[in-house]
């Protein structure tokens, strides 16, 4: 009984594995795997080229532009401190403490802490 049963199972399984649908499915799956692998590889390569190109061309540019902006800011600050001081405000540095003076009326200074 058991042997017959086994025989049926093996016959069924062999008939399934030998059917054209299964072999077609197998080849499609392997094709899909191959294509996916190739696609992944080529995307990886493209990403690598794009990344290294970005590293060479754009990263130094960003860093230098940032530095330039910092210099410009520093210049602007210095110009406002030395060249044309703000007319209504000045600060006095005494004993390491900065006291800000501001005025409401000309010649009359108030202290702002």
């Amino acid at each position, binding site marked *: 009984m058991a042997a017959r049963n086994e025989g049926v199972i093996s016959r069924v399984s062999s008939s399934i594995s030998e059917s054209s649908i299964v072999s077609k499915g197998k080849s499609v799956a392997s094709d899909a795997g191959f294509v996916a692998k190739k696609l992944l590889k080529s995307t990886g390569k493209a990403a690598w*080229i794009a990344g*290294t*190109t970005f590293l*060479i*061309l754009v990263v*130094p*540019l960003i860093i*230098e*532009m940032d*530095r*330039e902006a910092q*210099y410009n800011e520093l210049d602007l600050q210095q110009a406002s401190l030395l060249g044309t001081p703000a007319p209504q405000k000045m600060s006095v540095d005494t004993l390491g403490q900065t006291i800000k003076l501001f005025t409401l009326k000309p010649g009359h200074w108030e202290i702002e802490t």
Partner: protein
Amino acid sequence: MATRVPPPATPSPVPAEAIKPEKVDYMNLPCPIPYEEIHREAMMSLKPEHFEGMRFDFTKGLNQKFSLSHSVVMGPTEVPSQSAETIKIPTANYEFGANFIDPKLMLFGRILTDGRLSARVKCDLSENLTMKANAQLTNEPHMSHGMFNFDYKGSDYRTQLQLGNGGLIGASYIQSVTPHLSLGGEVFWAGQHRKSGLGYAARYNTDKMVASGQIASTGMVVLGYVQKVSEKVSLATDMMYNYMSRDVTASFGYDYILRQCRLRGKIDSNGCTSAYLEERLNMGLNFILSAEIDHKKKDYKFGFGLTIGE
């Protein structure tokens, strides 16, 4: 008398006159730039001196006119080979140079530890005539050469006569046609190789852009275009086509001249990306970074350098 046209002193024709293009004085055109420097701006932006390894340059002025230079270069150098792969061998070189600079006379001499010697002379013979000479001596046979150039600078044209060893004779002429456009041509004859050629060039420049084109009978076509975007930024593109070997290269690059640095980047149609950064650390102290990657040939070149003096 009543129908007489009123004198043009009325305010209405002023804007119309402002729009009208300025009359070009064709007798008073500016002097063009020399024929061999026709692509100057594009070359400056797109072809910095990339190097691999380390370099150190030191220039010391002994007095106002005389200066000495020392430079050390270490790194791999490419050896020409038949195979597609590049072969590199490590080399180290020291170069000693002496310069004499005077407005009327310039002398430069360089000697390398591997035995190469080069000398350049630029001498103003008269106000318009300049003589340039350069020579290179090596211990390898047939690699030494010498060349004499005579440049004549007219009011709106320039001519040049070239004489070199190996029977090389060349002449070029460039003329300003309008205030912005200049056209030129050249002929050359290389006696040793029994080759001769003709070439033409055109250049159009305004203060915002420069376009230049050159064609030669050797099959070379070179086109260049530089656009000045702002005071600090310029964008450049060029194309090189060789009719004989049918290869064409186009490249696009940027050139940023900032307060503390100059940065030049370029990408070309062969998949080669390069950048060149010159950073000013201090007065007379420059730091150089050079990078060049060629994905197709898998050739990666990185270099750093220091320049002291000048």
